[in-house]
């Protein structure tokens, strides 16, 4: 149970996230097949494989560099909507960790909020349109609510909120992205991008709980 994370923890956590997500791509593929074009799984896989390669090639010098390297790898390797969105999330979010040797609950909340803000700007959508935002926004709020309790608790709250957010997307009609044209037919299906958010946060939570 880690209330704060050092650079090595963060790198190890992001490695864990990458490996876990790579192992779970089929969930994302199937979710995207249902309401999108079926490439979300392989796209995220490319991004996370790219992250691991980047960490191997250039071990991050600090926490900010670790988050940013992940964002850069996703941005350039994932492509599509998810590449732009998750790339922006990690790259923008990384800035709040600039100069920090350790990060705690408040930092994680700030990371999610700053990332969210950048993603909202990039994608031009709001909550309720059945996107990544519907996993990310509740997660950021839950994190802020627990900011005093340490990284592990914050990640746990954020992950739970994201999972609930995914659940909520089932009841939303998509009004952006490839699922938009489905209209009512998108009802009942969770949003693939939101699922990715929840899996990423869940992997972080599990890492922090063990660390």
């Amino acid at each position, binding site marked *: 149970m880690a209330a704060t994370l050092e650079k090595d923890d963060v790198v190890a956590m992001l490695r864990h996230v990458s490996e876990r997500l790579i192992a779970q791509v089929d969930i994302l*593929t199937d979710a995207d*097949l249902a309401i*999108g*074009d*079926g*490439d979300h*799984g*392989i*796209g995220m896989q*490319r991004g996370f494989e790219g992250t691991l390669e980047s960490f191997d090639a250039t071990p991050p010098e600090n926490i900010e560099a670790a988050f940013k390297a992940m964002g850069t790898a996703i*941005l*350039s*390797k*994932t*492509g*599509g*909507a*998810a*590449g*732009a*969105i998750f*790339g*922006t999330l990690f790259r923008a979010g990384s800035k709040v960790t600039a100069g920090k040797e350790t990060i705690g609950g408040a930092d994680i909340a700030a990371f999610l909020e700053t990332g969210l803000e950048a993603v909202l700007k*990039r*994608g031009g959508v709001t909550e309720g349109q059945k996107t990544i935002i519907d996993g990310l926004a509740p997660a950021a709020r839950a994190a802020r609510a627990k900011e005093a309790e340490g990284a592990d608790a914050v990640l746990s709250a954020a992950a739970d909120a994201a999972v609930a957010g995914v659940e909520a997307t089932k009841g939303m009609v998509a009004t*952006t*992205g*490839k*699922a*938009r*044209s*489905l*209209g009512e*037919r998108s009802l009942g299906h969770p949003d693939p991008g939101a699922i990715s958010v929840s899996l990423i946060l869940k992997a972080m939570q599990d890492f922090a709980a063990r660390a």
Partner: protein
Amino acid sequence: MAKAAKKIINDPKKVVAEMLDGLVLANDGRIARVPGHAAIVRTDLPESKVAVLIGGGSGHEPLFHGFVGRNMGDGAACGQVFAAPSPDIIVAAAKAVHRGKGVLFLYGNYAGDTMNFDMAAELLEDEDIEVRTVRIADDVAAAPPERKYDRRGIAGDLLMIKIAGGAASELETLDDVVRVVEKAGDNVRSIGVAVSAGSIPETGKPTFELADDEIEIGMGAHGEAGVSRQKLLPADAVADQLMDKILNDLPFQSGDEVALLINNLGATTMMEMLIVNRRIRQILDERGIKVHRTDVGTWLTVQEMAGFSVTLMKLDDELKRYLDMPAESLGYSRM
């Protein structure tokens, strides 16, 4: 549930990289790879011209990267299968095509493409390279007319690239080229019909499911939902439905001249498309709409998907001029 398609490929993760190698070679020296990037550029690019950069996800060959050549795109940024190219690819491609007169970004209107191309445009602006964007949004099935900005780009891409390529060969400024291409965009309408699904090489899974006796009118180029799923119909009835949607969307009038394009989404036969063309021309004749130019072929595919789309572009003298310019590329060539 349909079986995964049999494909003649090597490593499924390398399809785009190997396809690009093969594409460059197939152009017999007329295009080159942008070093280190999934992007290509004409080798015979004139020294001073407005540049046209096209691009998008792969898997729709010959679109987009097959449309780089004389009086077509000057270069292309290539994403992975069905995934927009990342900003770094787009930036590298834009720099490779830029000849001092600015770059037109011309691509299909999808969230992924918009975000990645926009990020690239911001990075290029930091380096004082002027970029203007036209997003192709011809699919009438994707959104009602009042939300045209929400429509996706389908086979109208070809006519748009053709016009952009022609205009950018003749016109002096990026503004002028943008004006012509935007006019073309205002006047182009498409709609497709899906008969059976394609699949992504890496997952092997069909992108949608249709019963053996069903078709879907209006389905998008990645299997996005259309306007109606229905029983298989005769060709004339399908043509009637498609034309109805198109002709009700833009106020085409008796005496108008149009470009007509019938695009094979992959596995449909040319025989079917020609039978459909017969009916389309009957409908246009009845309405007094004159066809200036017809293209029937395979331009925007969705892997081995079966189905086709119909595109009409209303023409004026200026659009005709650029559309009729000779053009040459691996995927589209016409004298």
